[in-house]
């Protein structure tokens, strides 16, 4: 089976079947990561360009490792050191990149919708590595992969997503993906960051941690973006931790075999207690490894769709 589009722009565009196919493919790639020779020749001769307009270590490195494991050549362009600072437009940068021979462009941008714009205007495959507050589809796919690996399936899972939902592209992609595959989603956080209107997405909204975490299978913590502090969303990081920080006592409200996830980087002592982050229920480091397998699957599958 092929994906319908040459690009991966958003989870919204994918069918439940396509998501399932990406996750299946990723488990084949996870095998490769456990070998001595962690490389396959599948995309030999292709070129991947990482075009990052926002700082990122984790996602960019993950895409870079994934592309290299598939034997593509990788070019990293961090816009802070490129001609973008000289005033080049996005489309001109992209066209230059294509002229260099790129087959796949992985883009992260601060403005929502940028990958969509790029995909419409160039022939290469475009993969969204996070756009503004819109979506971060590969993060959601790796989160689902990790849940499936631990719980056997997605359907019927109770998943709590805790923190700054309003500004989080990770949360949005996860909400779309999880509801498509039949999981039940609860959002927990201060009403300023988890407004009631999110109920329209078919999820539960809670402001109290203890009620929200009752009997869940998965707790997904989000990073509190410290730059939001002092903008009136919550009084102080200290108070945030007291009300919405994940402590061992709160984890005890969930099911016994709950798994704890975090897309990273973590703020220990602000959204998550160290003892919880390092506990045996935490799958945070598995998420990093799974991220490579899932991104390999995405790069492999989009490059099979001719534009």
């Amino acid at each position, binding site marked *: *089976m*092929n994906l319908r589009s040459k690009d991966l722009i958003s989870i919204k565009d994918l069918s439940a079947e396509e998501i399932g196919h990406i996750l*299946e*493919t990723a*488990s*084949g*790639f996870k*095998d*490769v990561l456990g*070998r*001595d*020779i962690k*490389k*396959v*020749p*599948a*995309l030999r*001769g292709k070129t991947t360009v990482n075009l990052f307009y926002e700082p990122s270590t984790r996602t960019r490195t993950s895409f870079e490792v994934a592309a290299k494991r598939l034997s593509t050549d990788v070019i990293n362009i961090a816009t802070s050191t490129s001609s973008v600072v000289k005033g080049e437009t996005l489309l001109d940068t992209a066209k230059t990149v294509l002229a260099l021979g790129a087959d796949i462009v992985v883009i992260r941008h601060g403005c929502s919708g940028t990958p969509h714009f790029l995909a419409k205007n160039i022939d290469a495959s475009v993969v969204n590595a996070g756009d503004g507050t819109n979506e971060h589809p590969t993060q959601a796919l790796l989160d689902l992969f990790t849940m499936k690996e631990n719980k056997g399936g997605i359907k019927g899972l109770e998943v709590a997503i805790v923190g700054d939902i309003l500004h989080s592209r990770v949360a949005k992609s996860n909400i779309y993906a999880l509801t498509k595959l039949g999981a039940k989603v609860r959002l927990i956080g201060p009403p300023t960051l988890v407004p009631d209107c999110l109920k329209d997405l078919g999820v539960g909204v809670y402001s109290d941690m203890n009620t929200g975490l009752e009997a869940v299978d998965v707790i997904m913590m989000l990073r509190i973006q410290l730059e939001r502090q002092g903008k009136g969303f919550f009084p102080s990081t200290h108070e945030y931790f007291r009300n919405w920080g994940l402590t061992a006592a709160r984890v005890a409200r969930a099911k016994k075999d709950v798994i704890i996830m975090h897309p990273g980087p973590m703020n220990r002592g602000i959204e998550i207690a160290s003892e919880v982050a390092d506990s045996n229920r935490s799958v945070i480091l598995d998420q990093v490894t799974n991220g490579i397998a899932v991104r390999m*699957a995405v790069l*492999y*599958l989009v*490059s*099979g769709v*001719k534009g």
Partner: protein
Amino acid sequence: MSKELLDKKDIERAITRMAHEIIEKNKGTRSICLIGIQQGGVHLANRLSLKLKEIEGSSIPVGILDIALYRDDLNVRKEQPVVRRTQVPCEMNDRRVVLVDDVLFTGRSIRAAMDAIMDLGRPSTIQLAVLVDRGHRELPIKADFVGKNIPTAMNETVIVQLAEDGVEDRVVLE
């Protein structure tokens, strides 16, 4: 239009003979590992290992190899091949690997399989066992153990059906 080439009994006999040949050529079953190529070779590898155990008494490790990522037509195909699991239960280093597939045709899958094996380690030998050799090789590849040689035309298809997939054991030419 389809014609039955082998029935249940024929397949059983072919596997028994191939098992004996494998033992003869390798002077026993020591350090042998059977690797079935996804998907057609997997059940056959299992059957061969049962047969080897029946004859020699010791269990033979059986692995599964997916060759999708090593194919030579990834740039030409319309659709990406499905990536399946590779599960090899033992180290490949210094093993006598017997690759198992249902039909040997152009030889391209076997080339891909050998590359995939080499990425897992350095076996001492790689041998090839196939249930049907239908000719038309495009690469210099030859099977060590053949269930049946069947001359075919390019436009014909050889279909191997096995009981493990819920159908009667048979080989059909279409």
